[in-house]
């Protein structure tokens, strides 16, 4: 158990490519932090620097009160779970779990006890004498987790551990990882490119883009008040609609169409407007609305994703399946649900007043939206 402090850490590869640019994250003891971002954003590099598998070019990483920049991975008191499990193929499950402990000269009796405990926790007791080859993907992943658990490390590092599993198993393993982490209370750093995994697992998530932190926050805070257009489009599925528009008085103009948006005096005239698909609703008669020309419809069961164009701009709306759909529909949105971003920098401009409340019902529609 320990806090991890990452301070101004950079990774500069030979040849001058800066994969991670001065990243600072303070992770509290027992916290579950998820690093999320598209491939190539530096999230794995950052994790591997914490693990000691990559040298830290600049900055410091502390685990507990120790600066671990120049300490061997084995001495850092961490355990890592890899995407492809990285189990030793020629060793039995028992030996896979015990190998790290043996190398540390742990007494045999204690190794036995710890392996038995981890195996019981992960329900892999009956496989201890098997080789990894004879296990399914999910079982292998459990063994990989077991190898981390037996060490009783200060921190768990997960490098996309669920990416090799099928969709259904991924959902159940996700739940297990979350519960296990809560039960053990071990500080965890988890890397994924899957925003859904990030949302469901994280105490706080860190959105990375191009080696820099875009936003750190609790999952719902990030979801409801994305700090930039990048975060807005990355977190949430379907991705937030981002439309270029202009402000004229209390109205937002999207090409030839316009919406009533209430008072927006502090905002510049040119804007990028963010609209969550599930915030759109069918406009009642006489209301100012956007007319969407429908291209195609995705049925997800619990909801229906309607893709179309408004004045040539792509828009997606998540509607209830009960709503009849014609070739065009009139959509509108509550002004408080609009997100405003700077048209050039993409930074968030104003906090929507009620957006940070965690108990908003629309968040519950997230799960089926992945389908």
């Amino acid at each position, binding site marked *: 158990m320990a806090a991890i402090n990452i301070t101004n850490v950079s990774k500069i590869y030979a040849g001058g490519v800066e994969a991670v640019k001065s990243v600072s994250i303070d992770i509290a003891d027992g916290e579950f932090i998820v690093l999320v971002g598209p491939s190539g954003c530096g999230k794995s590099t950052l994790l591997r620097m914490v693990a000691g598998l990559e040298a830290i070019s600049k900055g410091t990483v502390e685990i507990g009160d120790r600066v671990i920049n120049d300490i*061997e991975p*084995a001495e850092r008191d961490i355990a*890592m779970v890899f995407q492809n499990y*990285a189990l*030793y193929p020629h060793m039995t499950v028992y030996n896979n779990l015990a*190998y790290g402990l043996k*190398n540390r000269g742990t007494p045999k009796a204690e190794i036995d006890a710890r392996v038995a405990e981890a195996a019981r926790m992960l329900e892999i007791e009956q496989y201890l004498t098997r080789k990894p080859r004879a296990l399914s993907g999910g079982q292998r992943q459990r063994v990989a987790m077991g190898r981390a658990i037996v060490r009783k490390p200060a921190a768990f590092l997960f490098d996309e551990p669920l990416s090799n599993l099928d969709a259904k198993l991924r959902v159940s393993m996700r739940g297990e990882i979350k519960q296990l982490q809560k039960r053990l209370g071990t500080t965890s750093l988890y890397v994924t490119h899957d925003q859904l995994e990030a949302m469901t697992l994280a105490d706080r998530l860190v959105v990375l883009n191009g080696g820099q932190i875009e936003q750190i926050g609790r999952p719902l805070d990030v979801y409801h008040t994305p700090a930039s257009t990048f975060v807005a489009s990355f977190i949430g599925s379907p991705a937030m609609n981002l439309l270029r528009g202009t402000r004229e008085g209390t109205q937002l103009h999207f090409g030839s169409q316009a919406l009533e948006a209430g008072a927006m005096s502090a905002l510049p005239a040119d804007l990028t407007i963010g609209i969550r698909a599930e915030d759109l609703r069918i406009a009642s008669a006489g209301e100012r609305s956007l007319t969407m020309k429908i291209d195609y419809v995705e049925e997800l069961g619990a909801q229906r994703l309607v893709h179309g164009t408004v004045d040539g701009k792509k828009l997606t709306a998540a509607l209830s399946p009960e709503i009849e759909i014609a070739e065009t529909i009139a959509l509108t949105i509550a002004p408080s649900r609009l997100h405003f971003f700077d048209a050039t920098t993409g930074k968030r401009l104003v906090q929507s007043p009620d957006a940070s409340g965690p108990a908003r019902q629309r968040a519950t529609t997230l799960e089926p939206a992945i389908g």
Partner: protein
Amino acid sequence: MHRTKLFDHVILMMGVFFMVGPLLVALMTSSHEAADIHRNGLQILPGGHFIDTYTTVLTREGGFTGKITGLRMMMNSLILGIGFAAGKIVLSMLAAYALVYFRFRFATITFWMIFTTLLLPLEVRILPSYEVMNTLKLTNTYTGLIVPLLASATGTFYFRQFFKSIPDELLEAARIDGAGPFKFFIDVIVPLSKTMIAAIFIIMFVYGWNQYLWPTLMTTDESFFTLVRGIKQILLVWVGSNIPDYNEAFALAILAMVPPVMIVMIFQRWFIKGLTESDK
């Protein structure tokens, strides 16, 4: 699916005939008397002197010094074959391990230099090698027979390719598990390479077993003679009358084939596995 037709069988049977036929002729001929062979040529029927010919070949003391027996030559061949194969494996595994896992400067150039020597046969460097061994006073020793042949581009190349196919995460997991370079090699790399080792062992054993030129050059003392040399020697030295002991030459040739065949049969399963698949 392809249905087996008569023609396919004909091809297979011809293969068997051409490959096994000569062996059978050698085996049958070796059971006749030398004079008989001299008069009537090669035989395809058993001749009734099987046991005494083979006993003679294995136990009779011959050569200039009258001390070297067939058994002794077989022993020498085995020592050469096994020492050669084992030494090559150890050396090329260590070389490949260094090339793949230690990022030292010029690693790629070093590898390609080693790889280029694949193109050069032993004969190219046989004189300098002999000179070195002679200066070190290692002629007429097993060390002199084996050590100069150990450096193996083929083995290094195979092991390098194999190590490269082992996922990096395994190394990383081992590092986090507290295994240093040596421990990782012994605990992970060697067990994973088992099938590869078997495959290389077979190839190298047979190669070492069949060496002729190098042993001929390196050894003048008859107690170091190998089987392959013995066969040649029979026709030159063991001539009692005017007729060479053809039967004994054939018997020795058959005996020379047995150990490689056995090695191949024992390691066959691993051999095929090692060259075709890997369980990682």
